[in-house]
C-alpha cells in the first residue's frame, strides 16, 4: 500500500505537468480537444491525490510501522478516530493533506465549469495545476509521507524494517477539536487558491468585464468561512487544551492564519465596489494575489523556523521551498499585472466622501493596516536580528496595544458602512439613520460607566457593539416593515422574506452581528482574574463569586495514557453548583504530559480550572483557577459568523410577482360600459434605499 500511495502521487505529479503543458497549448491553439484533454488531466490529478491520501489513512489504520510517518505519529493504542487525524499531525502528512484539500477545490471548479467559459477556464486550469505541482513536488520529492524504514540485508539487498510500535500522537493533538481545526483552517488556506487562480487567469487572458468576480465570489466566501471557523476552532483548542487560560497568544502560526483572513475580508468588501460600480479593479486583483501570497508566506514563516513558534512543525528544512514558491508567485503576478494593467482600468468615479464607496475604502485601509501591524510584529524579530545581531521578542503586549485601536475603528465602520448610500449620502439621511443607534450605544456605555466600568476600550467596544447591533436591527426592521405593509405578513416572516430575497446583504449583516459578539467577548479579557494554590484534600480557594473545595485526587490507567484527576466541589453564594475534574495525563509512548482543563462556561463567565502540577517543596498538587468573563460570546459569535456566511451563500429567492388592483384612471375609461378594475403586475415590495 505504501508503494501504491507513492506511485499515485508520482502519477499525480506527471498529470499535473501535463495539465499545465496541455492547458498552455490549448490557450495558444484554442483547440477544444486540447482544452478537454487538459481539463481531464486536472481531474486525474485530483483523483490520484485522493488515492494517495486514502492509502496513507489505510497505513495508519493497519498500524504499518515500517512507514516512518506512521511510526512517528501513531501507535497501537491510539484511539481509532485519532488515527485519522494523525494524517495531518506532522510535516509530511499535513502537506499531503494540503494537496488533498486543494484537489477537492480544483475538482469542484473543473467540474462546475466544465464546458463553460472557454476563454477563461484553460487559464484557470493552468494556474491551479501550477499550485498543485508545487505541493506535489513537496509530497513526492521533499517531504514524502511514504518513506519507509529499511535495512541492508545479506548481499546488500535492502528490506523493510517494521517497528513493533509507533511513538504515538502528540498528546496536545489528542483532543476532539484537533480532528476538525486543521482541516477547517487548511480548507481556508487552500480555498483562497481558487479566487487567486481566477484573478490571475482573468488578468492573463484579459477576460472582459466583472464575470470572474461573479464566478469566484462564492468560492471566496467558502474559503473565508473556513478560515474564520478554523481560526476560532484553533483558539478554542488553545483555550481548552493548553491550560494557560487564554485563547490567542499572537503566536506566529496564529498570526499566519489571521493575515490572509484580514486581506480576504478586505477583498470580500471591496469586491462589491467592483460589482456595483466597476471600481477598484486593480486593487481587487492585488488583494486576491496578496491573500494567496500571505497564505504561502505564513506557511514559509512557520515551517522554516525563521520565527519561534510553539507549533510542532515549526522548524524544518522545507521553508526555503516555500520562499522560492512565494518568489515565483510574486514574479508571475507582477509580470501579469504590468503586461495587462490597462485591462484593469476602472469605469466609475467617486461622487462623495460620504458614500458607501468611501466607507469601503476606509474599511480596506483599516484591514490592511491591521495586516501590516501583524506582519510587522511577526517579522520584526527577524529584522532586528539581521540589523542588530540580536533577536528581540514581540509578544502579546505589542500586538494588543497596536491592534485594539484598529479593531475599534473597524467596528465603527461595520456600523457606519451599511448606513451610507452608494454614490452620495445626504446629511439628513445620515442623521436619521445614525441617531437612534448612536444614542443607544451611548446609553449602554453610560450605564456601564455608572456601574463602575473604567476600562476605556471596553466602554468603547460596548458603545460601538450596541451601535452596530442597532444599525443591523434597524436595517432588518425597515425592510421587513415595507414587506409587511405590502403583504400583510408579520414582521418576523417579512424579515425572513427580506433576507431570502437578498441573502448576500442580510447574510452579511448576520456576519457583522457575529463579529460584534466576538469583539464583546474579547473585551471581557480586561476583567480576567486568576489564582494559584497548592491544595490538598479539604483545601479551599476563592475566586470571584466561586469557592473551590478540593475533595480528593484519584488516578486512572487507560491503554494510551495514565491520568491523575482532582475532584473539586464548586460553591457559589454558599450553594454547591457543580463539580469540576481538572486532569493531568501522561502518555508513556512519547513520554509527554497533557492537561485536561475543567471549564464551566456560562454567558457571563468561564470558571477555568487547571491541575497545574505538583510543588516539589510541599509535594502538594498545584491548582490554577481562572475567571474569564464573556469568553462564550466569542464562540457564539463565531458560530453566527459561519451561519451568516452560509446564509449569504444561498442564492437569492426571486421577487414574487402578484396581481394587485390598479387604481382606476380617468384617462383610460373603457368605452361603452362600466369601468373595470385593471389588473397589473407589481413587485410585492419595494425595498428601502441603500440595498446592495
Amino acid at each position, binding site marked *: 500500500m505504501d508503494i501504491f500511495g507513492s506511485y499515485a502521487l508520482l502519477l499525480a505529479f506527471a498529470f499535473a505537468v501535463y495539465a499545465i503543458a496541455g492547458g498552455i497549448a490549448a490557450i495558444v491553439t484554442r483547440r477544444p480537444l486540447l482544452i478537454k484533454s487538459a481539463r481531464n488531466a486536472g481531474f486525474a490529478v485530483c483523483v490520484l491525490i485522493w488515492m494517495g491520501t486514502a492509502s496513507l489513512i489505510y497505513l495508519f489504520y493497519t498500524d504499518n510501522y515500517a512507514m516512518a510517518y506512521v511510526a512517528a505519529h501513531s501507535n497501537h493504542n491510539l484511539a481509532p478516530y485519532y488515527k485519522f487525524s494523525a494524517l495531518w499531525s506532522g510535516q509530511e502528512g499535513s502537506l499531503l493533506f494540503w494537496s488533498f484539500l486543494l484537489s477537492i477545490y480544483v475538482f469542484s471548479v473543473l467540474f462546475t465549469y466544465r464546458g463553460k467559459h472557454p476563454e477563461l477556464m484553460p487559464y484557470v486550469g493552468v494556474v491551479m495545476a501550477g499550485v498543485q505541482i508545487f505541493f506535489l513536488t513537496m509530497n513526492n520529492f521533499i517531504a514524502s509521507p511514504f518513506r519507509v524504514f529499511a535495512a541492508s540485508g545479506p548481499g546488500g539487498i535492502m528490506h523493510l524494517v517494521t517497528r513493533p510500535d509507533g511513538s504515538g500522537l502528540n498528546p496536545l493533538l489528542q483532543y476532539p477539536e484537533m480532528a476538525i481545526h486543521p482541516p477547517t483552517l487548511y480548507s481556508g488556506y487552500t480555498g483562497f487558491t481558487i479566487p487567486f487562480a481566477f484573478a490571475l487567469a482573468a488578468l492573463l487572458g484579459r477576460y472582459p468585464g466583472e464575470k470572474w468576480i461573479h464566478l469566484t465570489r462564492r468560492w471566496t466566501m467558502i474559503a473565508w468561512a473556513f478560515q474564520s471557523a478554523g481560526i476560532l476552532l484553533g483558539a478554542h483548542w488553545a483555550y481548552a487544551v493548553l491550560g494557560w487560560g487564554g485563547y490567542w497568544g499572537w503566536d506566529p502560526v496564529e498570526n499566519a492564519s489571521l493575515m490572509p483572513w484580514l486581506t480576504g475580508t478586505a477583498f470580500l468588501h471591496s469586491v462589491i465596489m467592483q460589482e456595483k460600480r466597476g471600481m477598484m479593479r486593480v486593487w481587487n486583483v492585488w488583494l486576491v494575489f496578496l491573500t494567496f501570497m500571505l497564505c504561502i508566506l505564513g506557511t514559509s514563516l512557520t515551517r522554516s523556523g525563521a520565527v519561534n513558534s510553539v507549533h510542532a512543525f515549526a522548524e524544518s528544512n522545507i521553508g526555503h521551498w516555500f520562499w522560492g514558491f512565494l518568489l515565483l508567485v510574486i514574479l508571475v503576478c507582477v509580470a501579469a499585472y504590468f503586461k495587462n494593467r490597462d485591462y484593469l482600468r476602472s469605469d466609475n468615479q467617486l461622487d462623495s466622501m460620504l458614500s458607501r464607496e468611501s466607507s469601503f475604502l476606509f474599511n480596506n485601509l483599516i484591514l490592511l493596516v491591521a495586516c501590516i501591524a501583524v506582519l510587522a510584529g511577526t517579522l520584526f524579530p527577524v529584522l532586528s536580528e539581521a540589523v542588530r545581531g540580536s533577536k528581540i521578542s514581540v*509578544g502579546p503586549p505589542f500586538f494588543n496595544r497596536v491592534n485594539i485601536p484598529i479593531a475599534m475603528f473597524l467596528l465603527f465602520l461595520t456600523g457606519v458602512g451599511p448606513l451610507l448610500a452608494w454614490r452620495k449620502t445626504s446629511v439628513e439621511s445620515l442623521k436619521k439613520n445614525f441617531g437612534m443607534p448612536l444614542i443607544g450605544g451611548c446609553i449602554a456605555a453610560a450605564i456601564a460607566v455608572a456601574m463602575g466600568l473604567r476600562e476605556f476600550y471596553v466602554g468603547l467596544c460596548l458603545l460601538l457593539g450596541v451601535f452596530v447591533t442597532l444599525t443591523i436591527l434597524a436595517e432588518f426592521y425597515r425592510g421587513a416593515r415595507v414587506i409587511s405593509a405590502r403583504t400583510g405578513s408579520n414582521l418576523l416572516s417579512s424579515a425572513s422574506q427580506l433576507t431570502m430575497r437578498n441573502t448576500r446583504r442580510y447574510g452579511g449583516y448576520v456576519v457583522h452581528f457575529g463579529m460584534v459578539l466576538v469583539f464583546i467577548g474579547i473585551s471581557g479579557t480586561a476583567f480576567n482574574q486568576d489564582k*494559584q494554590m497548592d491544595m490538598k484534600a479539604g483545601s479551599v480557594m476563592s475566586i470571584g463569586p466561586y469557592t473551590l473545595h478540593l475533595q480528593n485526587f484519584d488516578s486512572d490507567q487507560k491503554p494510551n495514557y495514565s491520568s491523575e484527576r482532582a475532584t473539586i466541589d464548586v460553591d457559589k453564594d454558599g450553594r454547591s453548583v457543580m463539580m469540576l475534574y481538572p486532569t493531568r495525563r501522561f502518555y508513556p509512548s512519547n513520554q509527554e*504530559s497533557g492537561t485536561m482543563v475543567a471549564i464551566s462556561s456560562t454567558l457571563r463567565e468561564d470558571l477555568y480550572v487547571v491541575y*497545574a502540577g505538583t510543588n516539589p517543596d510541599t509535594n502538594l498538587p498545584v491548582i490554577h483557577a481562572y475567571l474569564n468573563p464573556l469568553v462564550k460570546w466569542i464562540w457564539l459569535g463565531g458560530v453566527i459568523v459561519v451561519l451568516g456566511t452560509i446564509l449569504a451563500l444561498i442564492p437569492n429567492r426571486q421577487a414574487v410577482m402578484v396581481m394587485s388592483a390598479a387604481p382606476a384612471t380617468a384617462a383610460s375609461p373603457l368605452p361603452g360600459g362600466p369601468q373595470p378594475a385593471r389588473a397589473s403586475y407589481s413587485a410585492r415590495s419595494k425595498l428601502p434605499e441603500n440595498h446592495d
Partner: protein
Amino acid sequence: MCAAFVALASALVPLRVDAQKTDRAKSLGTQLMCMCGCGQILTQCNHINCPSSGPMLKELDAHVEKGEADNLIIQDFVQEYGEKVLSSPPSTGFNSIAWYIPGVAFALGLAIVIVLIRLWRQRDIARLASASSAPVSAATASSTMDEIQRRRAREQADRDTEEL
C-alpha cells in the same frame, strides 16, 4: 504500570511555585517573556517541566519583595537574559521602529485614500465639463449632463437588479 506512575509523578513537576505573590509581580511578569523558547508571556507559560518560568518567577518575586523599582527589575532581567526577555520591543533605538510601522502604514494609507478620492472626483468633474464644453446652448449642456446622470442611473439599476 509502576514505571508509568513514576513517570507521571515526574511529569507533574511544578510550573511555578510560590510565584506571583503580588499584583505588582503579576503586572511585571506580563512585561517579560519566558525564556524556554515557548514564546509565551512569563506569567502565562505553563509548559510541563519548563526549566525557565519557575526560576524566573521566583527571581521576579524576590526583586519585588526587596521593594526595587519596576524599571530596575526589568533592567536586571534584560542584563541577565538580553533584550529578548522583554515581551514587547523597547521604545528607544532601532527596535522602536516596530511601534511606528502600524502608524506610518495608517498615515500613508490614509493619504493615498484621500488623494485617490480627490483624483477620482476631479476626473469625474473634468469628464462632465468636457461633455458640456461643446459649443452648444445652456439647455443642450444641461441635457447632456442629464443624459450622463440618466445613463449612470440606468447602469446602477442594471447592477442592482442583477442576479449575483
